[in-house]
């Protein structure tokens, strides 16, 4: 098993650093899946995560100048690693002016992802900082636990308002309640609601638009033939939503959410070369 990669371009480095920062905010530990063309940060929906799951996908070609991978076998040319994304985020944080960053899988004392940062210095030779991030290598028999989640059979799909706006609304609501109701309809309207014994607050968003989901095989049927004005709603943990809104640093070009009534809310943040999916289950 081998893996080595290199980033030279500063813009790519900053972008990659922002992605890892986002992941670090959303998950304490996660799985890093490496394939020939892509990297994935995965959080599977275990009870320990409070039912939350995450799937972040990036094409390596848009970030790395060099990317070599050699999996366990030729037909399974992939590597699955368990790591603390905070470590990776911290290693890249002080690499913002680096000449080059190399990432390499090593196994000296324990399996490590070695991030070697070459920094400019006042002298002729550059400064080298290495971070050995301990990782766990996930055996192949467990790979099935980390399959891409399918888009749920949602009732309503809606584009999200500006995440910054949404964040400030949710942050204020968080002080009043532990849970939030997200409801939306197929006329591009979305409401964020909190209801407590003392106070009810609703923020209305309109003209958001509904993404045109192509129903190739007719599986997204729930949304079809639905009353356009009828709201689909789910009550979710407000902290989890706030975490997503405050933690994301990918500045998505498109952000949308799919609501399965009373079951789950599925968020999708899209950037040209990064996609982040985040699933928050509805509270009982």
């Amino acid at each position, binding site marked *: 098993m081998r893996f080595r990669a290199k980033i030279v371009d500063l813009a790519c480095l900053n972008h990659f650093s922002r992605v890892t920062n986002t992941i670090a905010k959303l998950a304490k530990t996660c799985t890093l899946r490496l394939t020939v063309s892509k990297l994935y940060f995965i959080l599977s929906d275990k009870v320990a995560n409070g039912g939350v799951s995450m799937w972040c996908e990036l094409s390596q070609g848009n970030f790395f100048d060099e990317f070599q991978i050699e999996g366990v076998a030729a037909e399974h040319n992939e590597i699955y690693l368990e790591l*603390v994304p905070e*470590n990776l985020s*911290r*290693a890249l944080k*002080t690499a913002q002016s680096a000449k080059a960053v190399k990432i390499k899988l090593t196994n*000296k*004392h*324990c399996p490590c992802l070695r991030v070697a940062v070459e920094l400019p*210095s*006042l*002298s*002729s*030779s550059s*400064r*080298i*900082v*290495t*971070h*050995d*991030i*301990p990782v766990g290598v996930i055996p192949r028999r467990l790979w099935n636990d980390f399959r891409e989640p399918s888009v749920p059979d949602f009732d309503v799909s809606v584009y999200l308002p500006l995440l910054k706006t949404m964040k400030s609304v949710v942050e204020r609501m968080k002080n009043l309640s532990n849970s939030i109701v997200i409801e939306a309809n197929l006329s591009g309207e979305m409401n964020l609601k909190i209801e407590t014994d003392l106070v009810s607050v609703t923020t209305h968003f309109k003209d958001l638009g509904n993404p045109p989901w192509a129903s190739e095989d007719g599986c997204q049927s729930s949304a079809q033939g639905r009353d356009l004005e009828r709201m689909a709603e789910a009550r979710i943990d407000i902290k989890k939503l706030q975490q997503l809104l405050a933690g994301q640093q990918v500045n998505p070009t498109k952000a949308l959410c799919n609501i399965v009534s009373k079951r789950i809310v599925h968020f999708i943040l899209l950037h040209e070369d990064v996609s982040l999916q985040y699933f928050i289950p509805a509270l009982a």
Partner: protein
Amino acid sequence: MKCVITGSNVKVLGRAVHSLSRIGDELYLEPTESGLSLRAVNSSRSAFAAFLFAPLFFQLYEAGGRQPDRELLRCKVLMKVQHPPPAPCPGTPKAPHCSGAVPGRVTVPVSVPCPQSFLGIFRSLPSLEKTVGKCLILLKPRASRLVVQLHCKYGVTKTHNLAFQECERLQAVFDTQSCASSLCAPARVLAEAVVHFPQTLAEVTLGAGPGGKISLRNYVEDEAEPTKTMVTELWLAKEEFQTVAVAPGSRITFCLKEFRGLLTFAEASNLPLTIHYDVPGRPVVFTLDDAVLEVHLVLATLSDPESGSQPPTANGVSHLPAPSDDFADDLESYMIAMETSAYEAGSGVPPSPTFPLHTPRPAESDPEEEEEEEEEGAVPGTPPHKKVWDGHGRAWGRAQPPPDPHLSPQFRSLFFGSVLMPGGPGPAPTQEVLAEDSDGEY
């Protein structure tokens, strides 16, 4: 003592206070003929810093009248307010804490119910730079007040009256000349190096590698699982330093927090920083030198438990810092050894013959007697009032200073151990006195 500081030097003083506040909760002020010395020591006596401002630093500097039989007055003041103060009792006159007391002007007494701290006066460095033109520090022994007056813009004068305690000289004895290794680098180089370590990191290991390369690595505590902790290592080329005179393969581990505090000061003052160190367990001394300013920071270093049990040569070989691949193995063996030593230190057995621990005395012995003994045992030439804080306050039944939470036990035991001979009642002339103060006087 009276001194006046003007212009940008006020900010320099402010930054020095900030740096000292990283070390101790009390600030020791000592006016001397060679300048005003500000000092601090931490509660576990493993860190000591002294800033000596030469008379030229001030617009006016008067150390104070020297009485024939007395030394100059020294005092200590609160660095920061630790506890929320009790509400002032109604009826009792409040001590004048802060008031604009300029004759002929409107005086607005501001009743601040809490004890004032020195750091509080210099808390905001930007506003210090923007508004303060002149700073007057005045020691009034009769009124038992240390007066700090800030002359600000628009004729505003802020007068702070601080309560002080008279105290003995706080002195760390160290000799940078006897240190086997020394390094000198612009503060910026070192400041840029430590940013790679998290703010929460307690200790860092500095090592000398082949070709004069210097490495910094986060110190992984022995109880931490090596498979869980990220190890960050940084290499600095010889050319980045102004001077490198280090023993090959040497390495020391010291606390990062106090070092960061000094670096912030040094970087802002644009001064080169010199690091003097010796074998592990001996204190590391950081110095800054300027025409009007002299700074020393003395930190305990983690003892190398192998240095005592193994011949030095073997030790030197086994501890060559390794940019190579086998460094992890080396680290582990090091950590196993550390564990053993922690156990030994806890049971009162010296971790190494080089730095024996002082054997605790029976707790029932009279503190007064003990002190007498020590007075008698004092070295000729040492002023009689000088007393060594040797860390056996425990044995005297006095309140033990609260241990620094981020200090591992190895640091403390070692530091005291280096001060005293095993079981010896007083300091021997050749031994290092880290720090002495008046705590033993009560």
